[in-house]
């Protein structure tokens, strides 16, 4: 119901807390899954999700209605997620940096263990590991296409790049995934 979401955003722009809570509940699970998929760091998700919703509160008045509310919110989430990842990388990458040798991809080396059911199930899978090997930018395009089922135009809006860049990223991501997933079945059709 984009219309409902639009009116919620309009009300949030007037500091309507009830509308904000409604939108929060409407988006929580979607954002949680999305942020996990973008970052693959369970321990980041909660914090980034709150950052995203906080930004929705503070900038709802600037939403111009040219894109769908979900595109706008997912765009905020994309940028917050990328920022969190680069912050983490710059900060010595809490625990992952520098221990490529003997690293267990199934277990994010944060000392906390995988964060959620989602994390646990997916990180453990072959596909999850392969996706984890992609750069965040490439992974985002793959997830936004296949998980969120968005058009390349919407993805371009969300990640803030030209449409051709989206297609190119996807092209390279698919090639990389085929290298990583020979046993998965993916890539078995093409030579």
């Amino acid at each position, binding site marked *: 119901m984009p219309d409902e979401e639009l009116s919620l955003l309009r009300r949030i722009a007037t500091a309507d807390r009830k509308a904000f809570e409604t939108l929060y509940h409407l988006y*929580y*699970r979607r954002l949680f899954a999305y942020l996990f998929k973008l970052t693959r760091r369970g321990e980041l998700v909660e914090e980034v999700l709150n950052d995203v919703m906080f930004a929705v509160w503070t900038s709802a008045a600037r939403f111009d209605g040219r894109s769908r509310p979900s595109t706008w919110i997912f765009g905020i989430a994309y940028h917050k997620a990328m920022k969190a990842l680069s912050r983490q990388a710059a900060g010595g990458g809490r625990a992952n940096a520098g221990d490529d040798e003997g690293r267990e991809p199934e277990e994010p080396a944060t000392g906390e263990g995988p964060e959620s059911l989602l994390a646990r199930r997916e990180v453990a*899978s072959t596909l999850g590991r392969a996706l984890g090997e992609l750069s965040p930018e490439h992974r985002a395009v793959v997830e936004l*296409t*296949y998980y969120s089922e968005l058009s390349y135009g919407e993805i371009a809006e969300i990640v803030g790049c030209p449409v051709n860049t989206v297609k190119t990223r996807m092209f390279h991501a698919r090639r990389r995934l085929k290298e990583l997933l020979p046993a998965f079945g*993916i890539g078995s059709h*093409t030579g």
Partner: protein
Amino acid sequence: MGMETIAARAERQHRRIFELIPWYVNGTLAAAERRSVEEHAAGCPRCQAELADAREMAAAIQGAGEAAPSPHPAQLARLLARIDDHEAERAAGAGTNRLAATASADAGNGNRNGNGVTLARPLRGFAGFGALLDSTPRRMRQLLAAELAAVLALASIVAWQLRAPALPATPPAVYRTLSSDAPVAAAPGTAPIRVLFAEGATAARIQQILAGIRGQITTGPSPIGAYVVAVPAGPGADPVDLVLAHLRKQPEVSFAERVAGAGGTDR
């Protein structure tokens, strides 16, 4: 020469179509593009294979991620508290004091979330908070608002706990020593976590924190003040990681972690 140009053009066309395949598969292409993919793929084995691959990938990714948790009330409470801070600062910047209004509005929020008789009473006490804030210097006010936010966060957790099913009446777990990482058996429907409280934490506050997570001490405190606490786990319970994240944000909690190798029904 002419042949090459035709081949190059065909290859460019192929690449153009090939790049569209993911969005053909996810059903978001415009009609004209959709048709051009179908027409080209009909005579292009590479694109046919890619279509099969892309469908497989789409199905795998779709199937991989259906289970995100529901929002933890503490998380929303924390976000609302942050919004309060933000609004209060803005108001202060604009020369008006809206903090008191915000604070009592929040108490209202807590009530609404609460949904429960038990909660309504304690929260009523917050009505006076606004007046108190009004007559307090700004710096102090922020501290008080933070305190209020923390209490509200806790209150909403408690409220949420009231709705959750009660812990199974099974006797608590068998345990080994606190310091060892030896497996700690957990009662059905619970997961053991290890919690270390800060030195200054009062017994009342510890109890309050444990009530907030429906935790039951199975052993402790150790010489350094660590407890093993059984928290609800499994279907209907909150993900243990969110409980841990919540605990870690309490100033009285020095650390909170899973008990390694625990064989509980943790999800």
